[in-house]
C-alpha cells in the first residue's frame, strides 16, 4: 500500500510510457496531418524569492523550524519518530524564527531582485516564446518523426479554462491538433529563509482528434534549470534567468515530440 502512495503515486509518468504499445501505435497509425497550435494567453509567472527582511526571514524560519522536526521524525527509523518530531515543533519554531531573522536577506536586496525578475518576465513575454515553442515542435517533429506536422495559427485556447471545440472550426486538411499550453514559468525555490531557485517552464500538451474533439494523448512537461541564489539570478539585468528560460524551449519541444510521436513503451519498470 505504501509503495503506490509513495514513489509510484507521487511520480508523474507521461501517459505514453505506461500505455500498452498497441494502443499508442494505434493512435499514431491513425494520425494524418497534425496541426500544432499554441495557447493565446500568457503563461502564469511565479517568482520565488527569499523572505523579505527580518520579519520575512523570521516568518520563514518559523515555518522551517516547525516543519523540520516532523520531517526528520518521519524519515527516521525510530519507532514513533513522527510523534517525537511533533514534540520538538515548538522548540524548532522558536529556533527557526531567530535563525530566520538573523540570516534574512535585506529587504532592499529582495525588492531589487523582485523588480529585476519582473522586468525579465516582461522581456520574456515580449519575446513571445509560445511561438518559438510552436516552431521548435514543428521543426523537430517534421525532421524526426515522419509525420506531417504543420502550424495551425489563431485557433489556440484564449484562456486557461477554455476548451476549444476543434470540430466546430474550419481547419481543412488537419485531422489532429497538437495543442500546446505554456502554463507556468519563473523561478521556483523551496520556502526557506534564502533558498536557491531554478528557472522553470511548465507546458501542457494535448493531442486532440478534430472529428470528435477526443483527447488522444495528454501530458504535462516540465523543464528546470540549475539552482542559483536570488542574487545570481538578478545579476546582469537577469540575463541568466532569461537565458535559462529560453534554453528550456528546445528541450521541451524535444520531449513533446519524443513522448507523443516516438516513445515506444517498455515493459514494466523495476
Amino acid at each position, binding site marked *: 500500500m505504501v*509503495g503506490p502512495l509513495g514513489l509510484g*503515486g507521487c511520480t508523474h509518468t507521461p501517459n505514453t510510457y505506461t500505455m500498452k*504499445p*498497441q494502443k499508442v501505435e494505434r493512435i499514431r497509425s491513425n494520425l494524418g496531418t497534425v496541426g500544432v497550435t499554441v495557447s493565446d494567453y500568457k503563461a502564469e509567472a511565479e517568482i520565488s524569492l527569499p523572505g523579505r527582511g527580518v520579519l520575512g526571514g523570521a516568518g520563514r524560519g518559523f515555518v522551517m523550524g516547525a516543519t523540520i522536526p516532523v520531517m526528520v521524525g518521519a*524519515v*527516521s527509523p525510530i519507532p514513533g519518530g513522527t510523534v517525537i518530531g511533533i514534540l520538538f515543533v515548538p522548540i524548532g519554531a522558536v529556533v527557526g524564527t531567530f535563525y530566520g531573522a538573523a540570516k534574512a536577506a535585506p529587504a532592499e536586496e529582495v525588492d531589487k531582485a523582485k523588480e529585476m525578475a519582473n522586468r525579465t518576465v516582461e522581456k520574456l513575454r515580449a519575446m513571445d516564446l509560445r511561438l518559438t515553442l510552436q516552431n521548435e515542435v514543428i521543426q523537430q517533429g517534421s525532421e524526426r518523426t515522419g509525420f506531417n506536422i504543420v502550424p495551425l495559427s489563431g485557433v489556440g485556447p484564449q484562456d486557461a479554462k477554455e476548451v476549444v471545440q476543434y470540430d466546430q472550426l474550419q481547419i481543412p486538411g488537419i485531422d489532429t491538433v497538437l495543442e500546446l499550453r505554456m502554463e507556468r514559468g519563473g523561478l521556483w525555490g523551496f520556502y526557506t529563509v534564502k533558498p536557491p531557485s*531554478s528557472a522553470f517552464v511548465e507546458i501542457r500538451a494535448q493531442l486532440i482528434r478534430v472529428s470528435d474533439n477526443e483527447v488522444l494523448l495528454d501530458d504535462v512537461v*516540465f523543464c528546470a534549470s*540549475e539552482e542559483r541564489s536570488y542574487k545570481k539570478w538578478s545579476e546582469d539585468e537577469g540575463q541568466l534567468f532569461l537565458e535559462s528560460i529560453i534554453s528550456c524551449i528546445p528541450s521541451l519541444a524535444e520531449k513533446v515530440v519524443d513522448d507523443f510521436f516516438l516513445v515506444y513503451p*517498455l515493459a514494466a519498470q523495476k
Partner: protein
Amino acid sequence: MPYIKLRLPTYYARRVLPERLRGRIDWQLLLCLLCLALTAGCGGIPMAGLHPEYPPAEKGIFALWTDYVKVDSLQPMLRWQPFPRPKDVKADKSGNLNRIQEISYEVRVWKTITGSSGELVYARSGLTFAHHQLEEPLEPATKYLWSVRARFVLDGYPRVTEWGLAGYLLQGEVVPNPSCYRFKTAKNQ
C-alpha cells in the same frame, strides 16, 4: 543510524511539486510526501528505460537519487542493457518487437553545474552495441550525468525508448534531470 538525506523534502518541493501542485496543498499531497520519505529506503532502485550496467546505479538507503559512482578512466566505457530486453519480448503480445529494425543507441553525457543540472558535453547516436567508450576525455574530479536510449524503426517509422533514469523517476521532466544516471571521474588518472 542510516544516512538520512535531508535534501529529500527540498528536492521534492523544487522538482516534483511544480509538476503536481497547482496552487494548493492538500492532505493527499502531504501523505504522498510522507510515503515518499518512508519508501525512499525500501526495495531496489526504481529504474526506467534501459538500465545501466557500468557505471552501475547505486543508491543510499534514504537517498532519492543515485550516487555519483567513481569511474577509473576519463574515457569510461559505458554499458547498458541491450534492447529489446527479455522482459520486453515476453510482454510483447502484439508481436511489434518482431518487426523492429535498425536498432541503435543514443548516449548523452552532461557535466553537472550546480545541484543536479548539467551542460551537455558529449552526445553520440547510431551506436550499434550496448556499450560505448567515450571518444573524448572528460575532466578529472568532475561529476557527470548520463543517459541512454534505444532508437529503432517499427513498420518504417522511427521510434525510441524513453531515456534511462534511476532513483526518484522524473519522467515528466526534460533531460538532464536529477534522475539521470551518475558517475564521477577520479582526481588523478
